[in-house]
């Protein structure tokens, strides 16, 4: 199974205990598969049903394909301003 590095921030980084985690995903994985894989890790209970996910610094919906080499980040509710 391919492995992907996922960036985490703020409350998610606190919950997972790290700003970066590695997940194993199926071949031809999607954004939604990344979320499923993250949820099975310790701390994964922090994630809502459909957290915001950014691929290469743009928000992407669950059906979008992901692959190694992309910058994938799971984004807690934003609170700038």
């Amino acid at each position, binding site marked *: 199974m391919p492995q992907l590095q996922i960036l985490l921030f*703020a*409350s998610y980084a606190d919950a997972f205990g790290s700003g970066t985690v590695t997940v194993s995903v199926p071949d031809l994985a999607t954004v939604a598969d990344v979320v499923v894989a993250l949820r099975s890790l310790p701390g994964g209970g922090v994630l809502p049903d459909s957290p915001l996910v950014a691929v290469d610094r743009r928000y992407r919906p669950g059906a979008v394909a992901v692959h190694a080499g992309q910058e994938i980040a799971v984004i807690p*509710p934003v609170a700038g301003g």
Partner: protein
Amino acid sequence: MRRTALVATPIDPVSLLREVTTDGTGATTLFLGTVRNVNEGREVTGIEYSAYTAMAADELDRIACEAVERFDGVHLAVEHRVGTLGLQEISVAIAVAHARRSPALDASRFVIEELKRRVPIWKCEQYVDGTRHWIDPTSAATSHPIDAP
């Protein structure tokens, strides 16, 4: 013109105002977000702003581009600060200039609303009792209290 930036040092709103103003400017707006002393009834001592820096910078610039497209002729400068801010420090400044007031007012509101909706920045409030708390604007009920270290 448009300029956006994440910054780690204090924001100077006057220099932003100067930056957007031209001889054709008839209306200028400035929006400032500042750290206030009370939130949801708790006494705040400061806020730590953290960001997904690279994406936040990109997203801020995308918002500014959209504003320039929607409100033809606006000039704008936006800075958002990251790091630990004390009471009354400026977290965000949005300066907009236009020949007429409506686009200047509308663009300012557009930028702050989109920024709050989309830019990956988070704030962790620090309280008088030593605890801290990640702010979750989507739900007070699902926010995540954290014990002081």
